[in-house]
């Protein structure tokens, strides 16, 4: 039909062209612009448009007499358009002219009601759309309370009046008809639509004169026009929902159930999420977490700690991050969790609330071989342990960000969390002495349960002054936490070298009741003053006060009324931190320098009592002052090239657990005791980074270096007695240092098809410790290298290949014969292949090898996972997947560490081979193609 029309018009056009064949090819078009009172409109803008698509062909201005003329223009049809401030844009169709001059004479253009122009265009900042006689209002620009009807909205529009009974007048004339998207709504009564429709469903209101129904039906224009209002509905009303659910069953009783559902509109986001499984997914993955938290995902970075470096303890802002999966690869877990989240966002308010519950039950069997070096030899410990533990958390969080006005912003957030956990650990430990003889054997059966609650809140206020760049900020926060728990310690120890039969066996049965209460209060102030365009002056103040009350009552595990006074205690610790700092910033086109200094003071007090309410036995009170400098420099010499250098001194208070004067004897062969005399650790920190990215070929290279030197570092000094019982106690020691460096590069080998990345690391550390009062310095030199290739030969096959090798050379000054190399190496291949439409084969192969020359230890673990998935149903809503995990049944977790005066390797059992069939239903449908860069945008 359309084609015929086009053809006809072309023919018509040809006919016209024929008819006017004698028309001149070039003509002049002229006229005089006036208003309806025949007053001249000087300088009016006059445009010639192409009538088919309104494209601009030519334009000019009328002169001071309102006269315009286009000279020597093509003699074709035009749309003449004249615009003038305060007047309706004028339009007139021009046909090709038979004469050389097309004189249009006087053109009268109509003024727009000033009221309308002022209110719609200036006050409401909404475009006023004019199409011939139609004036269009943008509904979003006129604020009405939620739940309002269209009638309420119309009352707000300039030029429209609504009387008490709902009759509407537009520009003084009665409105006879209200249509919705051009259609009559509920019969002829115009009020039916305006009284029944919600204002929030409307995007535009158009007011125009429409031919009377009579004229429309008969086709005879009787000239009578009716004022009509048309309501245009919002396209999708900005509302939506999405969600998915997955169910899976596998061999060896494996199963998974997980799902999430979200509903949202422009301002609100609501989501629920839930999961249950026994395949070691202790939470949800990052993309599901993002969908759950919505636009509140990244708010946990609100920082109330002002100034440079690490100022005291970082602000503790608990969230429901524990919904994120965080499995460490060891053991078997049963998991259950879920939550609800609600966000509200508008221009000024961002509100988020959520509730989350999660629980995990862990079964873990592991073996550990540890060799400890002493000044005159070494001994080994062989552990076999079995753990059953359970933990559950409830967490309620809220965050409220409010722009109070254009200069003030307030962020408040709070989190309340309850958790309970219990665990039972059975361990058999054998101590092999320097002569390879079994010296001791211990069987431990410890159990514990713990109830904890934590409430924290933070408020951050920011004020921007009128002067650009001047900013003031203040923050305060508190953390209240309480834990109550009991430890049940049972052990039986055999001393094979004891000559006295009474010393050959020892049994411990002990019950500890622990109660901890902590209150932390923090506050911060920050003020930034622009001294000039280039210089800024920053001032900050940080305060924190941490009070801790710890009570422990140790009892005979068999006779619960018998208290062990030597193992019981009640103490109070208080750490107060004050820091004031000032700094100068300089910036100029890619150079930023910042030089600052801060004075800080720690006040540490500790009081120890034999029991709660008892007489004070020990009191410690100390003060620690320091002046710390800080310098950073960044350079951005050319596009995508950054150099950063920084130097600073960090001072950190000892951890609360290191300060506790409590004897931990859960393992009678490894006894730790806190030290209330600890001083804060001071460290010099130097870092340098250089990065360069070539935008045209996407080659990047990054170099990063960091050096730390520690003074008064908290180290755990050891005394090992003849029975191989280790007593360890944190003490301050200077001289530790560490140096770390990394070089990374990524570059394409074949554009769009093959990229390579390379990475080289070197870490050096020197750690001093006292072992039986002899200084041992552990020197570790760790080298590692990675290479990886990412290959995408077509849209249907993606392959990544990688290899890595790392070697850690560890030297012990106390026992150089024990110097050793810990080696690990790996190879991985991942492939994705869309071999039939909507069907994907995905596999990954990981080969890891572990070696230690001293232990004569060498273990290789090949892991192969393969799965096939197919998308089904309309929009690919259903995904069926058949997967084989760990085809060779080899999975286990191996950890090798070497530090201080020991080296360990640990082997933990975990979920190995299983097969699983899963079905996922996704409301939005699944992606039907492979993604090249994961979630990168």
């Amino acid at each position, binding site marked *: 039909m359309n084609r015929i029309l086009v053809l006809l018009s072309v023919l018509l056009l040809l006919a016209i062209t024929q008819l006017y064949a004698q028309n001149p090819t070039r003509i002049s078009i002229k006229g005089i612009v006036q208003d309806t009172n025949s007053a001249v409109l000087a300088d009016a*803008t006059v*445009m010639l*448009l192409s009538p088919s*698509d*309104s*494209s*601009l062909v030519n*334009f*000019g*201005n009328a002169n001071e007499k309102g006269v315009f003329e286009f000279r020597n223009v093509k003699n074709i049809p035009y749309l003449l*358009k004249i*615009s*003038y*401030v305060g007047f309706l*844009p004028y*339009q007139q169709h021009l046909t090709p002219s038979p004469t050389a001059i097309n004189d249009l004479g006087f053109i009268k253009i109509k*003024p727009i009601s000033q*009221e309308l122009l002022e209110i719609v*265009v*200036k006050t409401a900042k909404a475009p*006023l*759309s*004019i199409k011939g006689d139609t004036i269009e209002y943008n509904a979003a620009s006129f604020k009405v309370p939620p739940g309002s009807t269209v009638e309420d909205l119309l009352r707000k529009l300039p030029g429209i009046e609504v009387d008490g009974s709902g009759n509407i007048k537009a520009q003084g004339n009665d409105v006879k008809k209200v249509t919705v998207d051009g259609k009559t709504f509920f019969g002829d009564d115009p009020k039916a639509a305006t009284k029944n429709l919600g204002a929030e469903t409307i995007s535009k209101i158009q007011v125009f004169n429409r031919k009377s129904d009579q004229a429309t039906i008969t086709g005879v224009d009787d000239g009578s026009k009716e004022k009509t209002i048309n309501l245009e509905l919002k396209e999708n009303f900005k509302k939506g929902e*999405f969600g998915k659910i997955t169910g899976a069953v596998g061999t060896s009783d494996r199963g998974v159930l997980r799902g999430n559902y979200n509903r*949202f509109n422009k301002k609100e*986001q609501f989501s629920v999420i839930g999961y249950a499984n026994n395949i070691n997914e202790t939470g949800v993955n990052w993309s599901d977490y*993002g*969908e759950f*938290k*919505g*636009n509140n*995902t990244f708010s946990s970075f609100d920082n109330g700690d002002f100034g440079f470096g690490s100022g005291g303890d970082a602000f503790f802002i608990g969230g429901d991050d524990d919904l994120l999966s965080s499995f460490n690869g060891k053991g078997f877990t049963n998991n259950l969790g879920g939550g609800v989240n609600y966000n509200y*966002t508008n221009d000024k308010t*961002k509100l988020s609330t959520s509730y989350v519950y999660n629980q995990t039950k862990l079964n873990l069997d592991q073996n550990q071989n540890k060799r400890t070096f002493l000044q005159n030899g070494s001994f080994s410990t062989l552990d076999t342990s079995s753990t059953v533990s359970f933990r559950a958390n409830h967490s309620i969080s809220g965050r409220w960000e409010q722009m109070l006005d254009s200069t003030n912003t307030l962020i408040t957030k709070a989190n309340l969390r309850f958790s309970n956990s219990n665990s039972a650990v059975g361990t058999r430990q054998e101590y092999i002495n320097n002569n390879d003889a079994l010296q001791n054997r211990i069987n431990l059966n410890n159990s514990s349960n713990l109830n904890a609650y934590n409430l924290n809140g933070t408020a951050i206020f920011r004020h921007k002054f009128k002067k650009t760049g001047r*900013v003031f900020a203040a923050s305060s926060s508190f953390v209240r936490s309480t834990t109550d728990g009991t430890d049940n310690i049972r052990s039986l120890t055999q001393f094979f070298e004891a000559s006295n039969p009474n010393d050959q066996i020892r049994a411990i049965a002990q019950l500890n009741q622990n109660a901890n209460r902590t209150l932390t209060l923090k506050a911060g102030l920050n003020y*930034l003053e*622009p001294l000039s*365009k280039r210089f800024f002056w920053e001032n900050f103040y940080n305060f924190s006060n941490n009070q801790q009350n710890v009570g422990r009552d140790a009892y005979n595990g068999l006779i619960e009324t018998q208290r062990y006074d030597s193992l019981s205690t009640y103490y109070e610790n208080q750490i107060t931190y004050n820091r004031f700092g000032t700094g100068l*910033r300089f910036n*100029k*086109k*890619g150079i*930023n320098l910042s030089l600052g200094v801060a004075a800080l003071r720690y006040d540490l007090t500790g009081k120890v009592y034999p029991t709660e309410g008892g007489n004070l036995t020990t009191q410690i009170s100390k003060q620690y002052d320091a002046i710390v400098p800080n310098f950073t420099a960044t350079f*951005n*010499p*050319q*596009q995508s090239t950054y150099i950063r250098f920084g130097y600073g001194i960090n001072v950190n208070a000892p951890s609360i657990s290191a300060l506790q004067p409590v004897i931990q004897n859960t393992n009678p062969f490894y006894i730790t005791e806190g030290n209330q005399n600890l001083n804060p650790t001071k460290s010099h920190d130097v870092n340098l980074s250089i990065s360069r990215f*070539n*935008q*045209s070929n996407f080659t990047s290279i990054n170099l990063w270096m960091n050096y730390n030197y520690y003074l008064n570092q908290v180290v755990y000094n050891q005394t090992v007695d003849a029975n191989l019982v280790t007593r360890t106690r944190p003490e301050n020691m200077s001289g530790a240092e560490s140096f770390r460096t990394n070089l990374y590069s990524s570059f394409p080998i074949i*554009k*769009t098809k093959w990229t390579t990345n390379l990475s080289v690391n070197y870490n050096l550390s020197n750690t001093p410790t006292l072992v039986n009062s002899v200084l041992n310095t552990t020197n570790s030199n760790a080298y590692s290298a990675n290479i990886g290739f990412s290959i995408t030969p077509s849209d249907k096959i993606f392959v990544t290949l990688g290899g890595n090798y790392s070697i850690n050379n560890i030297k012990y000054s106390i026992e150089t014969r024990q110097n050793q190399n810990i080696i690990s190496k790996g190879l991985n291949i991942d492939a994705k292949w869309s071999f039939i439409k909507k069907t994907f084969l995905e596999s990954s192969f990981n080969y890891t090898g572990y070696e230690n020359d001293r232990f004569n230890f060498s273990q290789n673990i090949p892991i192969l996972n393969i799965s096939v998935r197919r998308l089904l149903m309309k929009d690919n809503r259903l995904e069926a997947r058949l997967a084989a995990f760990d085809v060779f049944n080899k999975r286990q977790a191996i950890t090798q560490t070497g530090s201080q005066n020991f080296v360990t390797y640990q082997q933990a059992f975990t979920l190995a081979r299983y097969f699983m069939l899963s079905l996922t239903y996704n409301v*939005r*449908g*699944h*992606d039907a193609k492979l993604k*090249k*860069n994961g979630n*990168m*945008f």
Partner: protein
Amino acid sequence: MKKIFLLALLYIAYFTSFGQNNEGVVYFTRTTYWTKLNSTLTYLSKQEKERMSYMFGGKDDWANYTLLYFNDNESKYVNSEEKNDESEGYAWRKEAYSIGRNFTKNTMTDVIEMLGKTYIVEDSLKLPEWKILNDLKEVAGHICMKAQVEDPIKSQKITAWFAQDIPSQAGPERLWGLPGMILELDINDGAVTVVASKIEFKKVDKELEPPKKLKGKKITDAEYQGMIDKFIKEKIKEEINPFWVIRY
């Protein structure tokens, strides 16, 4: 009576300003809305776009500032030294970016740092294919009319609002050629907006002077467009957002 008074006032304002409104500087705020920008990428699925806007919606805008100097004959559009609220006293290197238009000589002289190099685009001006629409709105105190143009290389639909009472063909970014100064741009439904906040009518001869030394590789407009086209196609194929690197 009130109407007449208003009208009279408007006339007076109009005529008094008229003598001076052909030379000055326009201050623009250029805001990038990243989720909207990312939503225009063809390789992202509907699901990814929705997740993105769900996670970042309402918190994804980034503003910087630009200046447009103009007189009867020419215009120059550059990045401003002004910093946005998040800068807190730090300043990053500004990339070379200067868009020069000479309407009498019909020439362009653009200095653009892009893909690691500085290019000088020198060519004659080719009028964008504007379509003029009928909507009116106010921008920075001026009643503006709506016009549209398409950029097929960057797949952009650009809406411009031009002032009816500033008789200059100048405009922000690389756009020009309307019967009035362009005071607002909206690229792809709000992915990037460039909105005038203030207009100062004053002598700007000094600012309009071309940079003394032009360092960079000289290319024609066609070569410049070709380079962008090739880069965008390549990155889209790799499923990498080309607009992390080049100006949207």
